């Protein structure tokens, strides 16, 4: 591994060229960081992505294979080849795909290239969630009550101590995959079967363990950043309690549920967990917080998270730039180690999925694409207008992030930004976010991981007002296509006066 910098000097770029081993918005994010640091970026693409935004934004690009992720973005040989061909000095894995794959980190290191992440050994240790649970216990950090060994034969284990409802979890898991809720002892065997199959398919490892289901709970995580010189900083916490199928949909910082005392306790636990491994990168320690304010360690990820942007807005620290710098051996300066958080930030994830049908992912082609801008609005997008969405990949389109002086102002800003957003071509979760921002639980900050299940379901039935508007628009559109149609006045003018404005009420 060639470490080019050993000081905090910022003269010259930390690397000459970086391969970005990912796609979509996170590849765009890393490419932007490279450009700002004066580093050449090399995008990789499968055949489904030859004209994708991340490829067009990078300085160079390398084809890595057919659309199937296993043969492209998950193919270690293809990526190592691309890194070698392009002469990259470092590889940024983004999140997902191979970002936490110890074999990939090792292959990169062995190719004499810097892996922008922790040592392979750290990934191997953390990749086993069960092993991480045991380490946390040894470090004196509370974990969710449950097994510290794999669940093999349910009949041979007394699960009454764990209690029901319980969660089955894949030891190699992450991102909500390989998880199953079980409400009764007699359902364990069947659920274990499904969880194992999902775990084998997703991670190639069917090891599953069991924890008590903490409910109601908030999902709160602590952002860490460490350098190669032993410096470790907590950049605040994030609340990620708005989830569907155990995956995050909305994140904010600071967490409305975290008191100063709890924050201290969370930071202390996060530092203890981080102390069990060797890392020099961005990392996140995830916790559940129960109704009584007790926190339980869930897992630690030593990579960038989707939701890093809210932390960047509140701390003013460019986490991707620092990830790259610390990988080059640069020391974290005081401006980073003594962060001064300001205001409140909220992120909503815009997914191509149908919130009116179980948040089912959809593919297709994005047509209209109008993102909000103006004060306090940041959009990290992986697509633009007229973009095909290959069915093989994660349906995240963009992250809409707002920042304002306090939480009320941030919620108001988010509502404004969502109002400005228009997406066509595919169903998205935009309608869910518009609903969410008006819910009293969200406005007050009193929500938990059960919010979507208990309050949204599949969304309300289509309201008459929205149906009437859709019908009027479609009819006008059809009439506008008729021969001899006039532009402008395409529907009968039965009322051209302006009533008292009730547009939002009418269509929310």
């Amino acid at each position, binding site marked *: 591994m060639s470490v080019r910098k050993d000081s905090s000097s910022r003269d010259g770029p930390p690397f000459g060229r970086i391969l970005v081993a990912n796609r979509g918005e996170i590849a765009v994010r890393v490419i932007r960081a490279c450009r700002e640091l004066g580093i050449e970026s090399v995008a990789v693409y499968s055949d489904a992505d030859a004209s994708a935004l991340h490829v067009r934004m990078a300085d160079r690009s390398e084809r890595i294979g057919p659309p199937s992720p296993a043969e492209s973005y998950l193919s270690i040989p293809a990526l190592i080849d691309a890194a070698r061909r392009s002469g990259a000095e470092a590889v940024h894995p983004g999140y997902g795909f191979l970002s936490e794959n110890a074999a990939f980190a090792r292959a990169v290191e062995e190719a004499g290239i810097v892996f922008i992440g922790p040592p392979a050994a750290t990934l191997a240790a953390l990749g086993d969630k069960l092993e991480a649970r045991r380490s946390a216990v040894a470090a004196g950090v509370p974990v969710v009550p449950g097994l510290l060994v794999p669940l093999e034969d349910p009949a041979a284990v007394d699960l009454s101590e764990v209690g029901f409802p319980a969660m089955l979890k894949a030891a190699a898991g992450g*991102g909500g*995959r390989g998880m199953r809720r079980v409400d009764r002892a007699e359902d364990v065997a069947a659920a274990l079967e499904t969880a194992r199959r*999902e775990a084998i*398919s997703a991670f190639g490892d069917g090891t599953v363990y069991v924890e008590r289901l903490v409910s109601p709970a908030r999902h709160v995580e602590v952002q860490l950043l460490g350098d190669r010189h032993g410096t470790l900083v907590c950049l605040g916490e994030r609340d990620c309690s708005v989830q569907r*199928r155990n995956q995050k949909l909305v994140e904010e910082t600071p967490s409305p549920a975290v008191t100063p005392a709890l924050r201290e306790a969370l930071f202390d636990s996060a530092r203890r967990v981080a102390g069990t491994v060797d890392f020099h990168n961005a990392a996140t320690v995830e916790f559940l917080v129960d109704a009584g304010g007790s926190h339980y360690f869930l897992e630690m990820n030593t990579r960038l998270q989707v939701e890093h942007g809210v932390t960047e807005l509140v701390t003013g620290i460019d986490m991707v730039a620092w990830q790259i710098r610390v990988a080059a051996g640069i020391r974290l300066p005081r401006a980073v180690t003594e962060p001064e958080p300001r205001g409140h930030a909220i992120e909503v994830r815009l997914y191509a999925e149908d919130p*009116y049908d179980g948040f*089912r*992912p*959809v*593919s297709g082609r994005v*047509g*209209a*694409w109008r993102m909000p801008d103006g004060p306090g609005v940041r959009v990290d997008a992986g697509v633009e207008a*007229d973009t095909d969405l290959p*069915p*093989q*990949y994660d349906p995240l389109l963009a992250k809409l992030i707002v920042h304002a002086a306090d939480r009320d102002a941030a919620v108001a800003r988010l509502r404004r930004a*969502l109002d400005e957003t228009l*997406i*066509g071509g*595919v*169903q998205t979760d*935009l*309608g*869910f976010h*518009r609903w969410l921002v008006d819910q009293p639980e969200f406005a007050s900050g009193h929500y938990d991981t059960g919010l979507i299940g208990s309050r949204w379901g599949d*969304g309300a039935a289509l309201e008459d*007002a*929205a149906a*009437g*508007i*859709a*019908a*009027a*628009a*479609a*009819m*006008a*559109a*059809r*009439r*506008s*296509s008729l021969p001899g149609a006039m*532009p*402008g*006045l*395409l*529907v*009968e*003018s*039965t*009322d*051209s006066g*302006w*009533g008292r*404005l*009730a*547009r939002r009420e009418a*269509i*929310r």
Partner: protein
Amino acid sequence: MRGFEARIGGVPVEPAVASHFEWIDRARGIARLRTAEGDLELVVEGRGPSEWLVTVAGRRIAVSIQTWRERMLAEAEGSARAHAGPVEIRATLPGLVVAVGAEAGSEVSEGQPLITIEAMKMQNEVRAPRDGTVTEVLVEPGQTVATGTPLLRVG
């Protein structure tokens, strides 16, 4: 309205009173509609002359705008389809077939899981829409399917 009727999910819908409609970006379907409650920006996408997808406040709504003649024709066709024999089950989401629990000749009952499709993150069961006999299985484990791919037929 010049003989057009609007339907959503087959149900007639009374269009909102609107005084003005204009395209902001016709190629991509961005339009502005003036109603009594104010101006709205929408995405309006055509799928043939009578089928439209209108995105209102983030929700994509399929609207049929048909003349009387078009409606009669469509209803006649739909009725013919409903009386046809076997039911074809198609994928409702893109993904990977990970398990097939039936073969040609299997007797199945309504709600029985037949095929498991893994989408990006989840295992999803495809169930029998009614009692019957599987006449044909069109996919096998390991195969990638797109939305709409025929999976199997139940007689």
